[in-house]
């Protein structure tokens, strides 16, 4: 049985895993590579006998890449086409499925040959395993990350390289990578920040966040907020820390004017230390706080900022 594997990057573990997985189903392994920078070494080590290199499609364009593979499938009639369970692997295979009107199974954990083949695949972000049967000619699937460990073959065969030029229409090239720009961000992202300074209803207004922003900037941290703040329209939802917002795990979380509702605490339980500033000594956030200041954030926060400035200029 011939299995064609879309190899996104042979140096990447997930592509290696896809090839290892494919060996469990087929005895003859073909690989297709699109936009690969050089003739890939290492393919043979994972059991590939023929590598098809698509020419002229260097920039990623999901529909066009899929079209290239569809043409290859028409010529080589493999029993199955597989891809790694990466974003691109899933996207290209989905386009192949759409173009050939065949079903596709994403994120497969294991497969047993048969007609139809039976497989187990991951659903629900890993919380559910689904037993399914896959029809289709060829069968289309992607391999769940780490479903199998990448293993080389004991005796690699000689690798045959076959270059081909797919005929891709302009329609297939509508969505493609045109330009690459490095991420420009005004500050640190909430998820990665070591310091997060958040404001709650106690900040009082959108303008009131100036003191929060100032402290965050001094500490090289990110600004967060509670749901009450986004509901009031003072900050965008992307700043919201909580059950229905961002989950954060900074070294220190400074919560200003936040009462500590369960919905909020669910988002900051990953914080190593919590400093709470709130005028209400009964506020439930103090139950989880490592450091507490009972006071008005509009006095306390500027005072902290001033101290930091003083210490740094000294």
């Amino acid at each position: 049985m011939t299995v064609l594997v879309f190899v996104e990057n042979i140096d990447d573990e997930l592509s290696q895993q896809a090839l290892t997985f494919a060996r469990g189903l087929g005895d003859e392994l073909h690989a297709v590579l699109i936009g690969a920078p050089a003739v890939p070494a290492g393919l043979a080590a994972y059991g590939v006998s023929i590598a098809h290199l698509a020419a002229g499609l260097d920039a990623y364009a999901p529909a066009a890449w899929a079209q290239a593979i569809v043409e290859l499938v028409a010529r080589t009639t493999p029993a199955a086409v597989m891809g790694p369970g990466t974003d691109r692997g899933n996207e290209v295979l989905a386009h192949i499925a759409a173009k050939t009107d065949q079903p596709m199974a994403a994120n497969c954990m294991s497969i047993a040959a048969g007609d139809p083949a039976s497989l187990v695949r991951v659903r629900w972000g890993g919380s559910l395993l689904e037993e399914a049967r896959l029809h289709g000619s060829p069968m289309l699937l992607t391999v769940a990350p780490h479903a199998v460990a990448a293993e080389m073959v004991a005796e690699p065969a000689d690798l045959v390289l076959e270059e081909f030029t797919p005929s891709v229409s302009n329609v297939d090239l509508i969505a493609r990578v045109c330009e690459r720009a490095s991420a420009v961000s005004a500050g640190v992202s909430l998820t990665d920040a070591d310091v997060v300074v958040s404001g709650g209803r106690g900040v009082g207004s959108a303008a009131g966040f100036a003191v929060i922003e100032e402290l965050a900037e001094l500490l090289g941290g990110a600004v967060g907020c509670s749901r009450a703040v986004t509901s009031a329209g003072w900050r965008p939802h992307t700043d919201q820390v909580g059950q229905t917002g961002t989950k954060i795990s900074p070294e220190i979380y400074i919560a200003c004017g936040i009462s500590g509702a369960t919905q909020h605490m669910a988002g900051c339980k990953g914080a190593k230390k919590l400093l709470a500033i709130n005028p209400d000594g009964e506020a439930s956030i103090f139950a989880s706080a490592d450091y507490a200041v009972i006071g008005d954030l509009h006095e306390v926060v500027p005072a902290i900022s001033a101290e930091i400035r003083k210490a740094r200029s000294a």
Partner: protein
Amino acid sequence: MRSAQPVERTGDVPRRVGNEVSIVLGQRKLLQRFGPGLMHAFIFWGFLVLAPTILIALIGVVDTHATLPWLGHQGWYALLVDVFAVLVLVGVLAELWIRKVQRPRRFEGSHLGEADLILGLIATIASTLLLWHATRIALGLNEWPRAWSPAAHALSHLFGRDEATRVLERVFVWAHVLTILAFLAYLPRSKHLHIGTAAVNVWFGRTGASGRLEPLRFDDEEVPEEEIRFGAGTATDLTWKQVLDTFSCTECGRCQDACPAFATGKALSPKLLMMGLRDQILAQDSSPLVPNAVTDDVVWDCVTCGACVEACPVSIEHVDHIVDLRRHLVMVESSFPAEAEPMLRDVERASNPWGKAQSERADWASELGVRVLEPGDRPPEYLYWVGCASSFDERARRTAESTAKLLNAAGVDFAILGPREACTGDPARRMGNEYVFQAFAEQNVATLNEAGVTKIVANCPHCFNTLANEYPDFGGRYEVIHHSELLSRLVREGKLSPQRSESRSITYHDSCYLARHNDVLGPPRELVSAVGQPVEMKRSGKRTFCCGAGGAHMWMEERGDAINAERVREAAGTGADTLAVACPFCTVMLDDGVQSGGQDLRVLDVATLLAEAIDAG
């Protein structure tokens, strides 16, 4: 209908007969809005009374001097006909006035022209009948003393006993009969089809608690694999009752008017949902229901509060449609609001929706001397099912603390499951994740059955609803009561004696899952009256307005205006100083609403109110 999915709706005949009598004959649901409801009742009762006159008129067309045997000669029947012909006209004119002059918002999106045409036809039928009778009286052709027909008699003075009247008599009877025939021909293609489908839909309506969702049968050996439903993806996935629902809809908009999502500017209108589904069924369109029949946000806006179901005069069950659409989106498409994903994951992984440690579940009770039931222990009289919110949420915990203190004070034999209590699965189920719900249902039922539990008291209406109405489907049969029921009984029996404060004004907010879905209305009010001066909101009892947390909305972001803010404004409008609740989610939502809106209201669970009033005494 023939390609629709099965659903069991045949048993419980006495209750179905009862529904026909009260909802159809008695027009109970319509009369919830008394004015328009009464006008409809005039027309409907008129339709029943006047039905035999169709035969009488058909005979009259052929033979001026003939009528129905017996009934055609009865004076009392002539009186009924006369009175109801007038009442039908009154009803039609009033309805036209409502539609043309008042123009309430509930008709937005309905087929208005169609309704006008139908009202016009009915008016023609009733007025030609009266005029026909009037000419017969003028010609001395009637079978009964003219005093039996006051209206037709009054009209008869317009006509002389002459040839012109003889012609008019023919014109009126023909006009009457032809209008009826035209109406009959038009009926099957119009929204007026409800005169046929409504009674049938009411018959097959739910007879049990409205809070129970129909379980999907994943593991049932009797269901062939290819027939297992995963909710509704296309029109053919709908059950026959759901299809019948769409054909019963008269587009009256009572559901839309009651809907908290619609009231706060969201995309959902239960009426437009029904119309969208019906259009897709009629078009025999096999494309996905979402987003073709209804858009994605419509499906997620619903708080499953059931206000639409309660308002619907023809027993349409909108929430079942919504949940089936969600089930398909969640279980087949994995498509749902991203912010709800942590809740689903945490329910599965941590057995509670906030991902707290199960070992901390009984922390609130550590200093209250509450017995935590260990395996093999003697079962208590009441198992107190605390629920996740009252176990973990700092505001809702006060309810659990108060309840435990009160039960201790009254000497009730109770215990909690502590870390062995898991989420009932309700939020996952209302989100559409039936897999997760059923796993938790089975786990909890096993725990409860092993512990020998027979009676459960729950303070969370959502847990209460699931335990009482949904766990029986999974082998868990217990006597489940809400804490307000047990506490009010203890007050009645004198085991708890609160201090009543005359100056304290309290308005009670009914929880949807307690009042509407489970008919618990009196006990929480008894508790409120026991501690202070009750004052009702306009939307109360079974017509309560949701706090905004139902249907897993506790863990979703709200679009549009906030439902809780709307409800808090209504509560503050009563002038009360305390807003009493009987649900931990209502507690959190309404307290949030008060904090945002700045109203001078304390939001307290009835148990906490009672505990405070006992401490004060």
